[in-house]
C-alpha cells in the first residue's frame, strides 16, 4: 500500500517542479513589475508545499516549522512589495 502513496508523493513533487519552472519563467520574463511579484508569491507557495511533502516523506517535524515560517514571511513580503508598487514607499510617515 505504501508503494501507491510513494508514487503519489513522487507525482505531486514532479508537478511542483513543473509549477516552479513556470513561476521562475514568469519571474524572469514578466513584462511588468506586478507580474514578477505575483510570480515570486507563487514560487514561495511552491516551496512551502515542497517542504510539506518532504516532511511527509521523512516523517520529521522540522519541515513543518519551516513551512509555517515560509507562509508567514511570504505574506509579509508580498504585501510589502504590493504596497511599494502602489505607493512607492513601504512604511509611510
Amino acid at each position, binding site marked *: *500500500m*505504501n508503494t*501507491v*502513496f*510513494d*508514487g*503519489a*508523493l513522487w*507525482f*505531486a*513533487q*514532479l*508537478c*511542483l517542479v*513543473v*509549477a*516552479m519552472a*513556470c*513561476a521562475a*519563467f*514568469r519571474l524572469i520574463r514578466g*513584462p*511588468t*513589475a*506586478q*507580474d514578477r*511579484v*505575483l*510570480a515570486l*508569491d*507563487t514560487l514561495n*507557495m*511552491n516551496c*512551502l*508545499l515542497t517542504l*510539506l*511533502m518532504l*516532511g*511527509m*516523506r521523512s*516523517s520529521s*517535524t522540522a519541515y*513543518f516549522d519551516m*513551512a*509555517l515560517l515560509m*507562509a*508567514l514571511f*511570504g*505574506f509579509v513580503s*508580498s*504585501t510589502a512589495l*504590493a*504596497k511599494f*508598487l*502602489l505607493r*512607492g514607499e513601504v512604511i509611510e510617515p
Partner: protein
Amino acid sequence: MTTQLPLWVTIPGTLLLTGGGLLTVIGSIGLIRLPSFFARMHGPSLGYTLGAGCVLISSMLTSSALLDRAVLHELVIAACIFISSPVTAMMLMRAAIYRTVAGERGTRPFGPE
C-alpha cells in the same frame, strides 16, 4: 517512509496528493499562458488555495497515522494561507490597477513598467 500506513489513510491521502499536485500545476500553467496580468492573477490565487488545502489535509492524515494521535498543526498553516492569500491578491490587484491607469495617463511617479 518506514512504517506501514493503514488503508484509511492511504486512499484519501493518495487522492488528495494527486489532486493537489494537479491543481498547483494547472494554476502555474495559467500563470504562463494567460494573456494579461489581470487574467494571470486568477490562476495562482485560485489554484493554489485549493491545492495547498489538499496537500495540507493529506499531510495531516499522514502524520496522524504515523504518530497514532491527532496531529492538527497543519491547520495553522492552512489558516495563514487562507487568510493571507486573498489579502495579497487584493493588494496586488489594486497596485496593478493604479499602475495601469497611471501609465496610460503618463503620470506614473516611479519605476519602469
